[in-house]
């Protein structure tokens, strides 16, 4: 276990070294959220939406959605691209020939982007609170374990996309569609209630809606439609069902590439 965790830490450290070696990324990491928040702050001034009952109005509602989008963009958008980059540069070969192995190696590749996403989310909330006066609820600190749970629930979707990368080498457009689709049916920018009835059921069959609702409730005090425990159980249920499936899919895609010989192709 110690050797495993040392290897995982080695991959996180590697990605952190690469990240800070491009200094403009650090600036972009701060400015990007600042511009996005500013944009939605002024848009929220134009809107009075009766279906939103957050103490912070639409701004409080959407800021949590933006945090989730940030995590989604990284887990579903950046991760497959990172793995593809490993294929192109040949650095994935180190995983393929190491005791740590390709599945652990790819899981390790996902860790730094996730840590980065959580850091960006905290930065975004801090900017919204300090600069734009977002009223954070007293329960905001409870959002941290729920956010971690949410991230774990999102991971199988990342595994699915990474599996596609391993098998077919290219999925960047697919991941953009998926993030956009989740943003619509997960109620990230607007309440589910405004969606037409025929599509509203989709909000119930993925983990993004309960994660978003719980985080909104804990961070800005938006009332929950269902009891908190129900939302939490739903989130845990998605993890129990989807996570093993995601890992098996990832393992199978690697085996498939190793068997037909395309594993090191790009």
């Amino acid at each position: 276990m110690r050797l495993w965790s040392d290897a995982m830490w080695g991959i996180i450290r590697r990605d952190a070294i690469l990240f800070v070696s491009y200094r403009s990324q650090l600036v972009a990491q701060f400015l990007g959220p600042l511009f996005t928040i500013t944009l939605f702050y002024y848009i929220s001034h134009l809107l009075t939406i009766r279906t939103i009952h957050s103490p912070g109005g639409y701004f409080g509602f959407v800021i949590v959605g933006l945090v989730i989008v940030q995590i989604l963009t990284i887990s579903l958008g950046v991760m497959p691209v990172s793995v593809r980059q490993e294929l192109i540069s040949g650095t994935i070969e180190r995983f393929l020939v190491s005791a740590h192995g390709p599945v652990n190696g790819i899981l390790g590749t996902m860790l730094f982007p996730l840590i980065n996403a959580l850091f960006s989310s905290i930065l975004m909330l801090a900017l919204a609170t300090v600069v734009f006066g977002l009223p954070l609820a007293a329960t905001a600190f409870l959002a941290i374990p729920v956010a971690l749970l949410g991230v774990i629930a999102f991971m199988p979707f990342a595994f699915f996309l990474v599996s596609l990368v391993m098998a077919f080498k290219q999925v960047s457009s697919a991941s953009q569609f998926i993030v956009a689709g989740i943003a619509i049916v997960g109620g990230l920018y607007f309440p589910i209630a405004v969606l037409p009835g025929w599509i509203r059921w989709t909000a119930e069959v993925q983990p993004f809606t309960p994660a978003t609702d719980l985080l909104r409730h804990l961070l800005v005090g938006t009332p929950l439609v269902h009891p908190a425990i129900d939302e939490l159980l739903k989130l845990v249920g998605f993890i129990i069902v989807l996570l093993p499936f995601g890992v098996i899919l990832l393992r199978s895609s690697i085996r498939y590439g190793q068997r037909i010989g395309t594993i090191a192709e790009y």
Partner: protein
Amino acid sequence: MSTAPALSQLTPQATATERDTTPLELEDLYHRWKGLNPPVLDGVSLTLRAGEVTWIGGRNGVGKTTLLRLAAGILLPQRGSVRIGELTPASKGNHYRRQIGFLSAGDRSLQARMRVAQQLDYWARLAYVPRGRRAELVAVNLRRFGLEEFAERRVDRMSQGQRQRIRLAMAFLHEPRVILLDEPRNSLDDDGYQLLGEQIERAAGDGTTILWCSPRGEDRVLTSDTGYTLEDGHLERVE
């Protein structure tokens, strides 16, 4: 010459199976690339003993790299088997790979923006080198491959030959029982070539099995090795 025992004997997680196994056995290997005929490997068998240095030559595209990738566990056999004792890449992949050091052809598999020492430490972690030996093995291999003065230099600021030395250092660093080298002379200058020969001789002296491929016979580092050529999917012994 190092008298330190092999890492596989020191690693606490090394099982009795790992310690007691005989070196690499390739049996009846078959591989056909999709859409291409005939198969690039067709019934290749080879048993390599501890401390043996074996060279495989052959024309470009004849299947040398495919053979090494199968031996390394990067590819899984479509038919036949690859094993170190009871370990196979498919059934006990992580244990199997712990015994293997691998150098691919070309100049890939390096983290361009890491420093040389960081790169070796990163590899040592992936190779499950225990924490207590990591710094020592990084330092030893920096020295063995003439990289000490470049330890703090970024990899993308190194020459091709220097990068090849880093890649070679990674193949030897974790003291594997089998080292697979695909065109190891690439870009090496005379000093680098000599260092490579010394390290192959030292590792073989410690009981490490070495298998390496290159297209030309004159690339052979040692004269005392066994040689084969690969042609039409089969190995033929070179006397």
